[in-house]
């Protein structure tokens, strides 16, 4: 066993994130308060919580894109300064460069690292094959479906071989079939080289099928962890089959029980704010 701090890929300690309000009279909005979270090296952790509770905020903090108001972020034991260079980030919204074709998008990270264009594009094409987009390298993002764009984004992130993968509801906009396929692909890729994954979703079934651990967040403001469940379903898993297994249903019931009150609270709040 390695020493304990080195085996923790991501450690968030007592994170607070307060956003200044857009109109001056209103109080600042405490999105996240005193939140702590760990992802062990090679662990797949999902975070579930109601919409607007601060899941993306949490991921931005881990990526180093957003500085928390207070609290510390440690990456493999080191305090995080600036951007998190050891993490890849799969964004919730469209993140591809519209002016580059699929291969160009996948290759761009390698080019930033000084890999020659030819070689970068050759490796990009290998990755496009891996995510099921063989021969689509010349297509521009606007010529690809939502699912294909997500695959390109996945390849774009994974080609850099990051030690930590941050994913923000990556499959939420996809139809059910595409989604199941991509979840299985993700598990295959993950199983092949055991990266540490912090996976955000609002879909509890998705969280359970994919993860080693599911963390439940409360509704905002002042989001905290209100549950931490170990998913002891054996791997390899088939995401489309697993939902009918007894253990899955049990876990689902437990976690849903913990979440239900928060979801209703979150829903009530969005109604009030709207």
């Amino acid at each position, binding site marked *: 066993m390695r020493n304990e701090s080195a085996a923790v890929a991501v450690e968030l300690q007592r994170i607070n994130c307060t956003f200044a309000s857009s109109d001056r009279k209103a109080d600042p909005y405490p999105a996240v308060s005193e939140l702590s979270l760990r992802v062990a090296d090679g662990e797949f952790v999902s975070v579930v919580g109601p919409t607007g509770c601060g899941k993306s905020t949490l991921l931005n903090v881990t990526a180093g894109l957003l500085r928390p108001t207070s609290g510390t972020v440690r990456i493999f034991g080191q305090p995080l300064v600036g*951007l998190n260079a050891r993490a890849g*980030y799969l*964004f919730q919204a469209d993140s591809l460069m519209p*002016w580059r074709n699929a291969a160009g998008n996948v290759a761009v990270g390698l080019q*930033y690292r000084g890999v020659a264009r030819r070689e970068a594009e050759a490796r990009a094409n290998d990755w496009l094959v891996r995510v099921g987009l063989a021969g689509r390298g010349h297509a521009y993002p606007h010529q690809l479906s939502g699912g294909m764009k997500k695959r390109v984004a996945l390849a774009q*992130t994974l080609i*850099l071989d990051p030690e930590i993968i941050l994913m923000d509801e990556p499959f939420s906009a996809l139809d059910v079939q595409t989604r199941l396929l991509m979840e299985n692909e993700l598990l295959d890729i993950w199983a092949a080289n055991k990266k540490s994954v912090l996976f955000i979703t609002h879909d509890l079934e998705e969280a359970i099928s994919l993860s080693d651990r599911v963390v439940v967040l409360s509704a905002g403001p002042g989001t905290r962890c209100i549950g931490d469940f170990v998913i002891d379903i054996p791997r390899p898993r088939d995401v489309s089959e697993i939902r009918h297994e007894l253990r899955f249903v049990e876990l689902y019931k437990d976690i849903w029980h913990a979440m239900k009150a928060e979801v209703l609270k979150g829903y009530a709040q969005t109604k009030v704010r709207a």
Partner: protein
Amino acid sequence: MKNRHVVNLLRALLLVSVFLVWDSLVRFGWASKFFFGEPLLVLRQVVKWFTTGEIYPHLLTTLLETILAFSGGALFGLGIGLWLALNPTAAKLFDPYVKALSSMPRVILAPIFALWFGLGIWSKVALGITLVFFVVFFNVYQGVKEVSPVVLANARMLGANSRQLLRTVYLPSATSWVFSSLHTSVGMAFVGVVVGEYLGSARGVGYLILQAEGVFDINAVFAGILVLTVFALILDALVSLLEKSVYGWRASTAAVTTTEAT
């Protein structure tokens, strides 16, 4: 298909009838020949210009000036637009002056440019540049401001440093906006150049008009206007062709890949 032919036919008829009305107005003395010219003489003048080849050096000069004005204005607009858009402090400092310069009727600079650069092509190019500059500048500024924050954050997470961000994110986005305003800026270059020629020059189609006016040859003035209009139409069609040949996002990718290939 048939419909389009009918429309084209009607359009041609419209043009012909305008000429007929013009001709009869002058012919029957309802309008003065001295001020309105005679359509047949106008056409004859145009034909003469082209058959004697007299007009080609002038056309060439105007074309060259337009190309130089457009490229210069686009280059300055791109450079300064990028610089100001990426430097909020500088942008704040220059904001009132940019606004003042852009709302000033810049054609009025023509006499100054004539003094500075003489009566050759450069005073016309300078005037064209000042007109093109602001079109490109505002588009570049917009292009940089409109870069999706997610695309930007993604590029940073993929490891881009600030120079790489400029080259792979800001510049392509800005170029695509410049491309989308290509018709306007090429038109501006043309306007600046012709106005410059008209106000004082030794060559160019604007110079032809100026000369004709000097000897009260109204037919040659109209002929010059006719040539300029057709010239502008051809220029615009060329821009459309360029846009179409450029494949990809917002017709911008060719510009982007060429910048990246260098």
